[in-house]
């Protein structure tokens, strides 16, 4: 018998395709898929979030670390709570929704709304505004977030997005999904622009209801908008990270006030001296 080993042609067991092509197609495809998925989830949560009873949200927030809560500044705390209550009274909050103001002795020029109707106001913000009206607009804006249930929507979005990536991670390579999830989570961590606009509108209406005019409402945004990126003090950076397009907000707020006939002049309230 004559045994033979003919020379086999190349490319039977391997692909001739350029490896970078595979990489680019896969990366774009998977990224697109994830963006669509996260978008759909966010969209669904906008409807589902407000259906969660506020009492559940409150119970949940009690378990969340209370790093901002402190008894060290009773004077500031009391004053802020009073102002917050007055502004909340203008917002026609749903039954059972309560707003709790917290003073935080930090240089951060910002305020934030979180789960359970908790609003944190940083010392940096109070120092940055010239009048009570300017501060009231920011607080009313944060109350607006609570009213529209934005914190629970954001939480749900974060949780479900993490879940999606965890499921993906179980099927794929950890490094691959690790990177993708870091990119993906960036898009859901903060409130989106539409939620900011919604809260601005609710907030401005509350400021008008409380003071009878909207003078000073855009004071804080004008201050922040006046800072070009070159001269942004470090402590204001956090504000820009969570509140984009300051200039547009001022324009929108002024238009809203004009449409409703809310007077843009009136007496400004002075800030108390602590």
């Amino acid at each position: 018998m004559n045994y033979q080993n003919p020379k086999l042609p190349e490319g039977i067991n391997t692909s001739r395709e350029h490896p970078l092509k595979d990489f680019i197609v896969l990366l774009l495809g998977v990224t697109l898929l994830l963006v669509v998925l996260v978008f759909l989830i966010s969209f669904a949560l906008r409807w589902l979030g407000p259906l969660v009873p506020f009492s559940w949200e409150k119970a949940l927030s009690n378990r969340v670390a209370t790093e901002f809560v402190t008894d060290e500044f009773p004077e500031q705390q009391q004053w802020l709570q009073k102002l917050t209550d007055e502004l909340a009274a203008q917002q026609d909050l749903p039954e059972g929704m309560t707003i709790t103001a917290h003073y935080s002795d930090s240089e951060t020029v910002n305020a934030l709304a979180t789960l359970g109707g908790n609003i944190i106001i940083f010392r940096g913000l109070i120092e940055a505004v010239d009048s009570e009206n300017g501060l009231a607009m920011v607080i009313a804006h944060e109350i607006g977030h609570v009213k529209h249930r934005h914190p629970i929507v954001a939480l749900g979005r974060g949780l479900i997005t993490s879940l999606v990536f965890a499921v993906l991670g179980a099927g794929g390579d950890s490094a691959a999904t690790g990177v993708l999830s870091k990119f993906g989570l960036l898009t859901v961590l903060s409130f989106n622009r539409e939620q900011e606009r919604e809260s601005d509108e609710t907030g401005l209406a509350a400021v008008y209801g409380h003071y009878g005019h909207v003078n000073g409402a855009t004071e804080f945004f004008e201050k922040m908008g006046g800072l070009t990126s070159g001269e942004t003090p470090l402590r204001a950076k956090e504000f820009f990270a969570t509140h984009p397009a300051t200039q547009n907000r001022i324009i929108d707020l002024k238009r809203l006030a004009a449409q409703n006939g809310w007077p843009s002049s009136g007496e400004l309230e002075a800030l108390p001296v602590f």
Partner: protein
Amino acid sequence: MSSFELYLFFGLLAGGYVIGSYLERKHYRSIFAREEQFQDVLLIAAKTPDESLSIEHSEMVTGSVVVSVDYFKRFVAGLRNLVGGRVSSYESLLDRGRREAVLRMKAEAKKQGAKMIFNVKLETASISKGAGKRIGSVEVLAYGTALRIS
């Protein structure tokens, strides 16, 4: 993820691609050359040789290789795992592994003066078991019976 981690990731990805492709091309050149060199050692899958052959000596020969993927290929395979399909980035890895193992077996046979290897078998073992997804290496083992024909 900090920007440092991100740079590190892209650095590893680019480094894995550049170095990995270079080494793969180099390995294939070496495989082609040695396949030419060992062309005269025949591989036969049949269990038993034809009765007409007069066997002077028979001995088992083996060739084994452990080969690993680069960071880039593993990342692409990770993406591929999400959607399914042909994992082309691993195909060349296994192709190289099989051919290298066969070449090492042939080299051993040639040393003994054998010109034929019967009952050739290939086995593949993943040695990443237990190491999670950190190691993407396989062992390919080729073995058979080398015959010296008088």
